[in-house]
């Protein structure tokens, strides 16, 4: 649906987007995830046509877009600030794009009513933009874009201004809407949870470049490098050195010793400096090792209680920072409560340790 080929964008001497290539499929919910300044919004604005490309090409539905101004592109956008026209009421905002098309007024009105139903705001047609809450404006912005039946809908941090509860509700609604309509959605967000909840695939961006494109599970389980791993959830990193290559080679890991690891698809040479990474959920805590799973002794130095679960920080020999371990915190089973200072053992399954490039 959208093909981005070697696209770069420079603002003066600042390189905002560097040689990005992406393929977004029809009907896909695709996210551009990155911190502010990573170039994700610039990339979206180039797809919309608000920014020209400095180099490279963008194709939408097989058509090269270089010389197509924004108002001729088969896409619509939901802006971060919603951009609800302040001098028009909700009905005229939603019908804005239809008015031009010379469709009979009755048909326009019918479609607007349909949209108001879709966004669960029936009877709001006569309201002014200033009388809407943030969530309602967001829906109106969505309806205004969707009524034109675009091939692609671009969303620029559409939920950023909403409070947490409303945001989660809107995420589910967006996802449902996209499934029902089958339109290709491209979402820009800095919120990893949002990207994961909504997307079929996510492109992680940093410093203007795409670092990794994968499904949410793929990104979480097989991050390509330390940057992605750190951005996508929590991760414990250990300095390490490869002892052998192959898929389940061995590595000498600072603090954990010689261990079997999941070195991924990349070929490693013996003695190569790498980073061993393990999720807090990949680690377990036991009072005494069972002698089968790998284990290392440590001491609990801090405990973060998070309701359904807790994060225990365990100091181990040979490593300065404590290791974060996620453990369930079931009501009534207060095993580790007040356990700061208690001696424990860390255990894990060998596949849980990923090997990443040192930098």
């Amino acid at each position: 649906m959208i093909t981005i080929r070697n696209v770069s964008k420079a603002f003066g001497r600042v390189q905002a987007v560097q040689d990005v290539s992406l393929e977004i499929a029809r009907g896909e919910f695709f996210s551009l995830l990155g911190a502010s300044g990573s170039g994700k919004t610039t990339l979206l604005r180039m797809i919309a046509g608000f920014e020209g490309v400095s180099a490279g090409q963008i194709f939408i539905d097989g058509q090269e877009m270089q010389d197509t101004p924004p108002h001729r592109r088969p896409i619509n956008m939901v802006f971060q600030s919603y951009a609800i026209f302040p001098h028009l009421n909700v009905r005229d905002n939603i019908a804005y794009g239809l008015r031009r098309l010379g469709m009979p007024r009755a048909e326009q009105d019918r479609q607007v009513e349909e949209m108001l139903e879709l966004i669960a705001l029936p009877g709001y047609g006569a309201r002014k933009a200033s009388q809407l809450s943030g969530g309602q404006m967001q829906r109106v912005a969505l309806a205004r874009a969707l009524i034109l039946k675009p091939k692609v809908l671009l969303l620029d941090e559409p939920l950023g201004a909403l409070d947490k509860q409303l945001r989660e509700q809107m995420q589910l609604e967006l996802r449902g809407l996209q499934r029902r309509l089958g339109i290709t959605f491209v979402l820009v967000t800095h919120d990893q949870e949002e990207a994961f909840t909504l997307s079929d695939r996510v492109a992680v961006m940093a410093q203007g470049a795409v670092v990794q494109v994968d499904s949410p599970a793929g990104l979480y389980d097989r991050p390509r490098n330390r940057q992605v791993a750190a951005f996508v959830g929590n991760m414990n990193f250990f300095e390490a050195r490869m002892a052998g290559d192959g898929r389940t080679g061995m590595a000498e890991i600072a603090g954990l010793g010689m261990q079997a690891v999941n070195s991924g698809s990349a070929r490693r040479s013996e003695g190569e400096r790498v980073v061993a990474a393990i999720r807090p959920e990949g680690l377990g805590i036991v009072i005494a090792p069972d002698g089968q799973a790998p284990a290392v002794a440590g001491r609990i130095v801090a405990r973060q209680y998070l309701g359904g679960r807790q994060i225990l920080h365990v100091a181990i020999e040979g490593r300065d920072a404590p290791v974060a371990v996620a453990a369930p915190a079931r009501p009534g089973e207060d095993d580790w409560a007040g356990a700061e200072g208690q001696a424990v053992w860390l255990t894990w399954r060998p596949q849980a340790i990923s090997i990443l490039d040192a930098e």
Partner: protein
Amino acid sequence: MTLAANSPVPPVRPGAVLRFLHRNEAWRGYLLILPALGLMLVAILFPLGSTLMMSTWSLSGYEIARTPSLDNYAAMLGHPMYGVLIGRSLEVALVATAVTVALCYPMAYYVAFHVHRHKALWLMLMTLPFWTSYLLRVFAWKVVLGYEGVLNTALVGLGVVETPVAALLYSQTAVTVVLAHSWAAFAVLPIYVSLEKIDRTYLEAAADLGDGPWRRFWRITFPLSLPGVVAAFFLMFVPTVGDYITPAMVGGPDGMMVGNLIQAMFGPMNNWPAGAALSVVLMVTIALAGLAFLIVGRLVRRV
């Protein structure tokens, strides 16, 4: 407050008035605007009251008779000159204002949307006519439009006309042109501000929804800048209707406006009551015209 509570030296307790003010933001506001408001009320109500009162007096010989009557107003109804002068004043002011607003809009638009550096310099250039006195500006126009003035000399020199055109100066057109030029800064600034304020995302959204540049202007930019256009219209229209310096200097007999007659009544004719009555009529006329603009503006925005 917390500062006072923490200080080791026992603080001087603020008086009841200060404590009251501290708690009442509205009253603090009133107190702040009181001096200016008081001065304005006195400076508006007193002259307005005395003008109204004087307009009901009359002239008997060289004395002013202070018996209230509506004779001055009746006299104005009976003489067509007043209607003609007020009508002409409205027409000149309306045309000058409309021309100025129409010419200033593109200028303000350009600076607001297409100038990214040295905006202050551009604004300064646009308000440049205001840097000299009003009288000097009108005089400068006399030099430009006069029988042996700049324009005529140029026209003759280029062979466009054989003898200088006398009609350039001392006409209604001359008054309109000079007024338009003199008040341009009043029109350009409010329009500029209203254009500058428009969130550029609205224009991007309109483009995204399929509107080309022309449609974007008429559907988004223009409606959102209307408040500035209306403000510019009022700021210029109201003072120009009653202007008497420009018509006196470049108007000639055809260009005379109602302001000249009022000035004459208070001056050479020495008939203050009649002058006061004419001032009141002019004030009411301007207020009615303003109301009409407002209503038209509302209707335009509705469409």
